[in-house]
């Protein structure tokens, strides 16, 4: 028994020594930075950075092949932490979120044909341009919902999809998936959006949707941050000017959404909200008309007075 014990202990001792020596001799060098980076990765493996998963991104960072701001779910906080580990300065970037730029639900842009195929926008779009009358609008079949790793996209009651900006991490997967390029990346803090994607002229837009942008440029008069290209108003999110709430009120199609006034859910799904907005817009337009008329009258009066004065002067001169 003593022999057995001592043999066992001996073997254990020898093995322990061997292991201890081996650990030192055959040590695999692991980048300290990589280890630290791996720990702070969000672990969503969404691919938004362009690398294969979080570990791929961490490796690329350690090798100096990736930008510290490339991780959309991590955002500026992660970028800062990465900067600390790598010992580099990180410029804060603005958080971006996805926005579905279409508000033409089943009520505004009705279906032109019955569709009983699979719930996939690409497949539906391939069949005669899809069942929706507007071929630039959201079909609401939810291909984007399937690719979103964060559960940030949901269907609305009126046949559209919507991105929850609080859950959206800006990984752009939905942007790539949408066959009609309706989903756009916008700054999270932006509060005014043109919810239309149809570049056609007024007549064609009105034929297929009651809330589509016709490119009338009335909003452009209210704000310099809105531009019209191809008969479609687009918000220039890089412009510094704050968009006044009159831009939305001026739109005859109610295609501009102002998140300072209404929640997106109410805007899209609550008819009462739309009615209240329409009333506000009508009031504003009436007031604007009155104001303009007054201004014109004033200008006219001024002009008249000036002319009278001039005429009087002329008379005087004539007299003299």
């Amino acid at each position, binding site marked *: 028994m003593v022999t057995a014990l001592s043999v066992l202990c001996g073997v254990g001792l020898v093995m322990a020594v061997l292991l201890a020596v081996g650990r030192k001799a055959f040590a695999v060098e692991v980048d300290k930075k990589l280890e630290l980076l791996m720990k702070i990765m969000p672990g969503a493996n969404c691919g938004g950075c362009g690398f294969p998963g979080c570990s791929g991104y961490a490796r690329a960072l350690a090798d100096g092949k990736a930008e510290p701001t490339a991780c959309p779910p991590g955002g500026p906080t992660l970028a800062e932490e990465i900067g600390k580990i790598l010992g580099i300065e990180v410029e804060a970037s603005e958080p971006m979120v996805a926005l579905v730029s279409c508000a033409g639900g089943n009520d505004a842009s009705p279906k032109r044909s019955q569709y009983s195929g*699979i719930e996939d926008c690409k497949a539906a779009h391939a069949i005669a341009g899809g069942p929706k009358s507007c071929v630039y609008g959201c079909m609401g079949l939810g291909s984007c919902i399937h690719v979103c790793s964060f559960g940030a996209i949901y269907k609305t009651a009126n046949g559209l999809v919507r991105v929850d900006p609080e859950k959206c991490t800006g990984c752009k997967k939905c942007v790539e998936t949408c066959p009609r390029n309706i989903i756009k990346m916008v700054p999270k803090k932006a509060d005014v959006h043109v919810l239309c994607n149809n570049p056609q002229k007024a007549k064609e837009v009105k034929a297929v949707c009651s809330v589509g942008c016709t490119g009338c440029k009335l909003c452009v008069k209210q704000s310099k941050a809105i531009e019209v290209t191809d008969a479609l108003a687009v918000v220039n999110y890089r412009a510094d000017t704050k968009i006044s709430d009159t831009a939305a009120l001026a739109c005859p199609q109610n295609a501009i959404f102002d998140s300072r006034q209404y929640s997106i859910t109410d805007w899209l799904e609550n008819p009462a909200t739309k009615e209240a907005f329409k009333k506000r817009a009508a009031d504003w337009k009436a007031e604007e008309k009155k104001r303009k008329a007054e201004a014109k009258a004033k200008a006219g009066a001024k002009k008249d007075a000036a002319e009278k004065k001039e005429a009087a002067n002329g008379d005087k001169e004539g007299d003299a």
Partner: protein
Amino acid sequence: MTVLTFKGGIHPKYNKDNTASKPITSLAAPKEIVIPLSQHIGAPARACVEKGDAVKRGQVIGEPGGFVSVPIHSSVSGEVKAVEPRLGAMGVAVPCVVIENDEQNEAVEFERLADWKKVSPDTLKDKINAAGIVGMGGATFPTHVKLSPPNNKPIDTVILNGAECEPYLTADHRVMLEHAEHVVEGLQIIQKILNAKTGIIGIEENKPDAVSAMEKACEGTDIKVVRLEIKYPQGGEKQLIDAVLKKEVPSGGLPMDVGVVVQNVGTAKAVRDAVVDGIPLIERVVTVTGSAVAKPGNFMVSIGTPVSVVLEHCEVDLEKAGKLILGGPMMGFAQYSAEPPVAKGTSGILVFEEKDVEVTHPLPCIRCGRCLDACPMRLVPADIAAYSDKRMYDKADANDALDCMECGSCAHQCPSQIPLVQKIRLAKSEILAAKRKKG
């Protein structure tokens, strides 16, 4: 006589009796003709006329946009009203030449050829190209491209497809009955161009009158007429080759890989008309039928005639219609409007009453394997569709999704009414997109 066929396929209701005995009648061209610049597979044609130009019947109004492309001709004489996008058969607006018909029917001088046997194959091919001929079975692949196989792929057999396996359609049937000699002459021209010794015409058994008409027309030639089993998709290129020659076209390959070229009987007639009479492809036979059509029939329609005009002639009440299909019921295109014009590939116009339209409600797959038995390409549609659902497109590719020709046999047989073809089509487009990205 033995009846030839392939493995797989289905037996849908044929419903050809309404129109099979109706002779082809000409339909007068309407006041306004809308001719799409892309009626074929390949590069769209470029318009070579402008608003206000006077055009004659048969005049070129669109020049080919590349080798895999064909010219487009005016089917009437009149004035070009516009060159603008109009609704096409695929549900989206496509560039079209709109012509106001002056009803003078003034045609350009067609260059006739007395004896094509003395002319070189290249000249014949040029004539076919200039006439804008495409596959008239519905696939609309430019014929001159099909007749130009690379030198390392010699063609020994030309098969004319007279199967017309799509239910309801009888256009090819009537062409074989009424223009048998022209079809045979067209086949001989194609054989000369390809230097192919064997010529075979395959006809489904349900057209015995067409078989005897063609046999009579073939007397004194080496051309064989064979009977095919009544089965869909008997007229598919690869199925036809399998049935007639017992040869298998390799996966991803073309009929020319086994030394065969397949042409539709309508195309053969168009080839003959182009070579002998010099007439370009400006009209085609269209079968108009379905439960909502009061006066069904086979009509010779000028290319560019709006479908609504044809339907008016056949006394169709579009208010009552539940479904409008251009082409056959299996592979045709459902429409949401009767505005699109009849194009080179429009073999049929089907209109059904609302009560005849079945709306499907897919249920889960029960692994019964009926799609597997039906698939003429010997694929496993249920598996490919499942991979498509899971977005595992690489797996779908490994299961040869790209060999699917979208004939619809699997979906037709599915007891769970799963839209298998749509799922496979989605997988195919994703696989091709991924391959393009890779380069």
